């Protein structure tokens, strides 16, 4: 059995340095995650608690089965923006009554759970995951609706939220809403579009317009309870299907609903019980190089994430900058594409295109482990048709129909990002290690290119070139690009589904593969025309 050999020397100086650097990055990441957990800050959390209410994550924890995992998605949404980290919403995949669900919870300690542009993106991304993976949707609602100052950015695209809930329903993916508090105006449609609605006595308030708006619109005097209280909706309007006595009771009823969804996973399921990797996943902290210029062997990563460290490598002697092969993870068959020495040459591109076709032929999901600086440039390579070959790879990855999972292990630059199934290529899930960088090219290269272009432009116009200004421009650009290529920046923009600890890679991929398994993977049998 081709079990991968351990070539990692944990005593080597480079390993220790890499590990220290990774731990520092994880610590910095933890600081940001703590902000997301902190919601609207201690004062708002305290006020929420004094009202006898549970926090968003407490609601989710109570919703989940004991000892079951929860994969939180996009926890750093809105990082680097003017909005609070986490975007006032918690989303993730968790197990309720033995059913994997996509759970969305408003965080009412953040501006009353109101939606800003990042909340909207995070919400839509969560629903996309529910749709692609046929995960029942559970909404734990408490939101004052749109963050009105940003309405221009969310009003039009935000309509998709309503659209997607009922679309899910029509696809046979049930949708459940438990309403914990305000669910006003647009927010009223989140429960309103759902298949099942649980409301909580004296807590849920669901109306298109609250008493002040009604007063303004029609002059009618009203109060919250008579206008949109749980009791009214349960007994009179019929909007509420279940009437809960308190929050925990609402959660109990939500779980009860899921228990009866008769949810069946339609995928083939894992092949028996999985053996853990033979090699120690803790080493994943020291394998990725602290210096992005130093490549590392992805087989040492694969050996720590796949079952039994058992990896059947495909074309090991050809196009060696890209490692391809088959393995199982938590018992699910996968094909792996992993960058080795960063650069993609013609051979690597062709190998990738062939491998992707093979995986589609046998309906095997693909895992992309990114560490690429892009396709090779230069006269010789252009003459040998690097563009044609890169196009083949991008054609293959684009038109592949097996589920894709992408992990950015270190770098994802240039068209390599596309060829290795970056965000635009629709992987089912995309996660990033905290050290990883993503950009069109490296900061020095980018600044250097800009400098050369400026110098040529000055020369063509016969103007003197300001070396000092060029130097400061290069420094500024480098700093900006470096900042904007960091994992947290990408995560803040929702360009990934979250930053993960490298040690959790197997667990995260396993959960993703299980979510995918709600349907049998089906590869394509046809592709776009290959440019030969």
């Amino acid at each position, binding site marked *: 059995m081709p079990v991968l050999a351990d070539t990692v020397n944990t005593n080597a100086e480079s390993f220790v340095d890499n590990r220290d650097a990774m731990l520092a990055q994880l610590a910095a990441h933890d600081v940001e995650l703590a902000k997301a*957990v902190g919601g609207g800050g201690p004062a708002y959390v305290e006020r929420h608690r004094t009202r006898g209410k549970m926090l968003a994550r407490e609601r989710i924890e109570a919703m989940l089965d004991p*000892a079951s995992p929860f994969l*939180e998605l996009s926890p750093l949404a809105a990082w680097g923006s003017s909005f609070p980290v986490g975007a006032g919403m918690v989303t993730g995949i968790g197990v309720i009554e033995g059913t994997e669900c996509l759970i969305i919870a408003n965080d009412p300690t953040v501006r009353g759970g109101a939606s800003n542009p990042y909340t909207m993106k995070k919400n839509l991304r969560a629903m996309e995951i529910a749709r692609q993976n046929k995960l029942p949707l559970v909404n734990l609602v408490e939101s004052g609706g749109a963050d009105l100052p940003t309405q221009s950015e969310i009003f039009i695209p935000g309509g998709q939220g309503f659209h997607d809930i009922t679309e899910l329903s029509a696809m046979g993916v049930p949708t459940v809403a438990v309403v914990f508090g305000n669910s006003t105006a647009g927010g009223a449609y989140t429960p309103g579009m759902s298949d099942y609605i649980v409301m909580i006595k004296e807590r849920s308030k669901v109306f298109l317009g609250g008493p002040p708006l009604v007063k303004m619109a029609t002059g009618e005097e009203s109060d919250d309870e008579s206008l949109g209280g749980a009791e009214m909706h349960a007994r009179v309007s019929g909007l509420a299907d279940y009437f809960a006595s308190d929050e925990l009771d609402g959660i109990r009823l939500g779980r009860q609903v899921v228990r009866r969804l008769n949810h069946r996973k339609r995928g083939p399921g894992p092949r028996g*019980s999985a053996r853990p990797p033979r090699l120690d996943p803790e080493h994943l902290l020291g394998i990725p190089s602290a210096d992005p210029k130093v490549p590392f062997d992805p087989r040492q990563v694969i050996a720590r994430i796949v079952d039994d460290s058992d990896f059947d490598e495909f074309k090991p002697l050809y196009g060696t900058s890209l490692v391809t092969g088959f393995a199982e993870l938590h*018992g699910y068959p996968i094909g792996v594409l992993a960058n080795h020495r960063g650069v993609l040459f013609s051979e690597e591109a062709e190998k990738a295109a062939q491998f992707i076709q093979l995986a589609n032929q046998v309906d095997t999901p693909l895992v992309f482990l990114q560490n690429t600086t892009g396709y090779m440039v230069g006269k010789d390579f252009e003459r040998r048709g690097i563009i044609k070959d890169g196009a083949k790879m991008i054609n293959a990855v684009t038109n592949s129909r097996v589920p894709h999972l992408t992990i950015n292990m270190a770098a994802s630059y240039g068209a390599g990002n596309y060829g290795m199934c970056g965000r635009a290529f629709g992987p089912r899930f995309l996660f990033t290690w905290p050290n990883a960088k993503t950009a069109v090219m490296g900061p020095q290269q980018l600044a250097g290119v800009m400098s050369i272009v400026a110098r040529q432009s000055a020369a063509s116009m016969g103007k003197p070139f300001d070396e000092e200004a060029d130097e400061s421009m290069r420094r500024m650009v480098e700093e900006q690009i470096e900042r904007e290529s960091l994992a947290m920046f990408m995560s803040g923009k929702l360009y990934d589904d979250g930053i993960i600890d490298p040690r959790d890679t197997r*667990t995260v991929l396993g959960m993703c593969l*299980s979510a995918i398994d709600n349907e049998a993977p089906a590869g394509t049998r046809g592709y776009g025309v290959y440019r030969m």
Partner: protein
Amino acid sequence: MTSTHRPPIDRLLIANRGEIARRIIRTCRRLGIGTVAVYSDADEDAPYVREADVAVRLPGTAPADTYLRVELLIAAAERTGAQAIHPGYGFLSERPDAAEEVARAGLTWIGPPASAIAAMGSKIGAKRLMRAAGVPVLPDNTVESLDEIGLPALVKASAGGGGRGMRVVRSSGELDDAIAAAEREAVSAFGDGTVFVERYVEGGRHVEIQVFADTHGTTVSLYERDCTLQRRHQKIVEETPSPAVDDELRRRMGDAAVAAARAVGYVGAGTVEFLLDRDGNFFFLEMNTRLQVEHPVTEMITGLDLVELQLRVAEGEPLPVAAVDARRDGHAIEVRLCAEDPAHGYRPSSGTFHVVEFPAIEGVRVDSGIDSGTVVSPYYDSMVAKVIAHGPTRRVAARRIVQALTEATIVGPVTNREQLIHLASVLEAIDDVVDTSYLDRTPMAEQAPPAASVVAAAAVAVIERQVASRSVLVDVPAGWRNLPSQAVELRLGEHVVRYRFDRWGAIDEIEVDGEQVDAREARDLARLRPPLVLGEQVHLLGGRVVLDVVPRFALPDEAGRAGSLVAPMPGSVLRILVQPGDQVVPGQPMLAMEAMKMEHQVVAPQAGVVAEILVQVGQQLDTGQLLVRVDTEVDTAADPEADPEADS
């Protein structure tokens, strides 16, 4: 007395159940004697039934329908080819008519002649006989006066036993009431209301002598057993030798017991019970004409097998030298494990003993009627096992009892184990106890709450069950979070456990009632002495502590409005079926209403007391109108004072 040899017994019917049936089977096995068990419907799956060579069903459950039916037992013996019937203790063992009928059927009765049983059966008659034989007896009287007796006095049922039909009288004014009460109790318990009055010895000890007689004229004393530690006049701990008996007293008491046995022509195993006062005076109480529950302590110090001796004597053999000149070696203590709850008036418990495991400890013998999986029914005696320990000293024997009970795993209905551990600890700590009412005067200290590490181990067991019962994502580490935000809470009884999983699914932080517990220690503890999770309960420390797994979600009352009932539709009130203050049970009709020509009953959603009726007959009702308010906070469960019958 005859000395003829009877045919040897090669198959024995045991007219009893539980631990004594098993104990008799054990000896028979050793002697190569076949065994026939009898069983009621409730005992069909009892261990003794499995262990016997043949088993015969006695249809029904009540003793009167089963174990007390002499004719069925004789028929069973005849059908299975048994030559003899061993009555054990209790049931038929002291019924002269049973002994007689068995003999008449040509079978051997393992016990004394019917005449001896009859002679000792009446306490009044027996005392008269004993007085004539020179055995010391307490001054007594029939019920007319207290002149010869003095105060305090004890009213006793002549046919009694086990503390029933007994009343202590401390002033002459109480006498009439005490007699009346004792008579009533005696009639109901024994079918014989005859009572008598004797002097009541305050602080007396209960010391009995095991005697053995063969058919060749040999009657010996196998020394005393001290049964002073009692609860409600029922034996619970027995020991030998008695801390209150020296060699000289032992000889005198032994002689008196032998004289008592001879006076009634006794054969086989018997026990003469004495009351021993603080001055070393002893008085005949009664003679038990059978094998005693507590016979094992005598076996432990003498090395004899009393059941074997019974069988040999029944076959007409003389008592062996080892019995005639029995040795006395060390100290032995027996405790009786009963399926009953000392904290609730010794209320008998019943149900399945899921796990019963006693540790192997030198000098400890366990005579148990139950194994793992045995169901204990409510129909018979509550005693389920006896733990007997032998040691060079009283202290060692007592310590071994404590050790055996502490280390045993007994998971099932509540037992008196904690009380026995406490008592054995008392015996270990002090050189003498006590008098027969020690236990009734000395309430047991409440059991200390389990240590945090023990509760944590229970939590680990519950969590491991949760982990094992996952149906999806089973290869994902338990409780994995990429963004851990809080500890998980688990409530076990009164305890609040908070814990976290590490990224590999191991519990790495655990806190019990706010106290940090070493997670490794809790895991090790859970492995070494596994808590047993059964249904929604965790049994800890071999079943000594039971914690309820509190459900995560409480089920609210049906209507979502505690205790109130509303009209389900518009209509009018036809009838009101309850009054304020009435107790109601779930489903009980409380009110009838008419709507759309149909009559609808409004029923109580849960048990409670009707607090308020808010409508009148004929009144028109709107949907949702409040009709009746039921107070559910009132505890309607009574606590029945149980007084289980036990054999002594």
